[in-house]
């Protein structure tokens, strides 16, 4: 408006506090936990660091618990987790196509990110599987205006057999585009961190003629080791005490069944609870606790006598650390929590989910943790037999590292 006075403020460079914008993927539950842990370690290295989070549900719930500061533009983000739920079926999620079919949400959210960075005075952006930020910065390198640290726990879109030739072509094309972007614009990712070790990388190629994923990833990433987001040591040391607190009797063998927070777990939950009568014949003192989560009505499940149905269990990780066996989906966070807590478990990757069936499974097999189960080949009697076989198996798998958050923070800290 002509004639109207305006005030603007500019802070001299050396008078500025260090500022970072953190974007944590809302797909799955694990990124938020590990990112809060990494943020904590970063603050140890830069006590003056201010962190804003551009975040959405369910990340915001974790951030609120930790009193982290959420950027007001977060309210303008379109929901990725609702989209992923809408793409899920009966123990089925084609994760590659689901992310591909999220392109409208990703461009919307990138433009929100753009606005946050334009006005935020940030020195650094940290993106933990923030696909929109990484992709569109490579597509529009001239708009990058901060240092950028990229994190992921898998590299390479992989086709599932059910997708046929077409999916193999598409995943290779997506990988090729990513490789071209990173090699043409190495200045976009100032630091790329693989959350894991080189051995956790799948032995596959990116696609025909594109070379091995591991070789390329080792050349383009640093490695933080796994980031659990919590220290499992006290839980392991205090396990007997924990069992008492949670009301698990010494002669009880407790199986926890948990299928995550979305509705996609219902069919697995039904099958596992249907295995209880047979499993309890095989295992003395078997006690099964099934956690339905917010989207499944426990009353709708016709649970057999003896199965305890819960809608919600606070501090589920403590139950998982105290149980005798867990039955879970194939997501990285929950399975690695169990591996870190040194518990036996059965895991059922969602059908057509390339990350759970290939990347996560490869990593768990590297640790020697858990038993892979194929949902389609596991009627209740097979599940009962697996419960009986695994519940007493001695735990001898490779320990999960506990310094991942500190290692990740040490890699990021020099950027600010």
């Amino acid at each position: 408006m002509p004639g109207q006075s305006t005030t603007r403020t500019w802070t001299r460079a050396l008078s500025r506090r260090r500022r970072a914008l953190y974007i944590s993927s809302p797909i799955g539950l694990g990124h938020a936990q590990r990112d809060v842990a990494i943020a904590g370690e970063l603050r140890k290295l830069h006590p003056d660091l201010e962190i804003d989070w551009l975040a959405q549900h369910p990340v915001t719930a974790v951030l609120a618990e930790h009193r982290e500061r959420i950027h007001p533009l977060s309210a303008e983000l379109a929901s990725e987790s609702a989209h992923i739920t809408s793409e899920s079926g009966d123990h089925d999620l084609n994760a590659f196509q689901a992310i591909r079919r999220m392109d409208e949400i990703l461009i919307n959210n990138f433009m929100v990110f753009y606005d946050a960075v334009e006005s935020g005075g940030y020195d650094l952006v940290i993106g933990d599987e923030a696909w929109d930020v990484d992709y569109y910065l490579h597509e529009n390198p001239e708009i990058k205006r901060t240092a950028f640290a990229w994190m992921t726990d898998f590299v390479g879109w992989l086709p599932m057999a059910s997708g046929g030739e077409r999916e193999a072509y598409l995943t290779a094309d997506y990988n090729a585009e990513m490789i071209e972007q990173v090699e043409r614009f190495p200045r976009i990712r100032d630091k790329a961190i693989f959350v894991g070790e080189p051995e956790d990388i799948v032995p596959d190629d990116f696609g025909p003629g594109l070379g091995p994923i591991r070789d390329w990833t080792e050349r383009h990433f640093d490695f933080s080791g796994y980031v659990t987001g919590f220290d499992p040591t006290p839980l392991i040391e205090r396990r007997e005490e924990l069992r008492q607190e949670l009301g698990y009797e010494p002669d009880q063998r407790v199986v926890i069944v948990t299928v995550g927070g979305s509705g996609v777990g219902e069919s697995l939950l039904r099958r596992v609870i249907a295995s209880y009568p047979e499993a309890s014949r095989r295992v003395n003192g078997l006690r099964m606790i099934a956690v339905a989560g917010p989207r499944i009505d426990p009353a709708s499940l016709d649970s057999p006598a003896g199965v305890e149905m819960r809608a919600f269990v606070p501090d589920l990780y403590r139950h998982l650390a105290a149980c005798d066996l867990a039955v879970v989906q194939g997501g990285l966070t929950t399975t690695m929590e169990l591996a870190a807590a040194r518990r036996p478990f059965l895991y059922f990757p969602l059908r057509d989910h390339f990350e759970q069936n290939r990347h996560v499974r490869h990593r768990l097999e590297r640790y020697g943790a858990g038993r892979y189960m194929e949902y389609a080949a596991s009627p209740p009697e097979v599940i009962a037999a697996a419960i009986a076989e695994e519940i007493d198996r001695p735990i001898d798998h490779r320990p999960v590292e506990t310094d991942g958050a500190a290692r990740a923070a040490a890699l990021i800290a020099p950027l600010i």
Partner: protein
Amino acid sequence: MVHAPADRPAPATPAPATDAPAGREQTRARYPDLEGVAERDGGRIGFEVYGAGDPPIMFVPPWIIVHSRIWKAQIPDFARRHRVIAWDARGNGRSDRPTDPAAHGDEAIAKDLLAVLDASGTKAAVLVGLSSAVVPQIIVASEHPDRVLGLVLIAPSVPLGERVAGRDVPFEDVLETEHRWAKQNRHFWRRDFRAYLEFFFGEMFNEPHSTKQIEDAVGYGTTTDAETLGATMYASSVERDAFLGLCTAVRCPVLIIQGDRDAISGPSRGIELARAIPHAQLEVLEGGGHGPSGRDPVRVNLLIRAFIRDLGGPS
């Protein structure tokens, strides 16, 4: 088959048959606040309204081979600060499917545009259009300047500059070939309309790694049909001299966005259009094809934002 342009070595690309749940629209970033139908001359034109804020922005549909979802990378972003109106031209989306060529002419579409402005209660708007939306946009801007605050003309399909070589294939003749543009033929459409769509959109999004944009657009194309689309081949279009006259009457600010590898309209159209509207701002996208709003949405959205900011509205 999805066809890559001839000058790019193309790996064999298996058909996109089964990779999306059949017929289900993917989740949108934002859903309309209001859906309506404008009626004009017995025709029905479906539109959507999103968000609030001035100036209002209307996204004008191109050829009915697509519908308003072609703007999915723009609508939610601009609806954060503006009232956004998107509509389907008659022949696709939520509009009716006239097979009378008279419904598909440039003048008829311009009247439909005005009808949607009226029906949505929009006095004036910035008109953002792609490809064959541009002639109707310019008709409205020159004949009803009070309704148009600015024009954004992307990959304009206008009677200026040079037509893409090889596109002039007889539509009604029985041809002995199905090679490339020979697919733009009524008999081929009746045989394998989808194969035509895949060819067409492979040409439209000829940038490498455009599988998603091609698949989306093929999906939009399957919601019209060969007979309705065939009617557009006989629609009356504004001739060059008359069009130049309309251009000289445009007074509002104009932004033209033109890819230099546009294989549908040809790269010279936007350049000639900028000569015909001397106050227009021309943005050339090197390496860009005919659908930059889908393939390079960040660049296009930032250009539109800056254009609107310069009009004096919120940025």
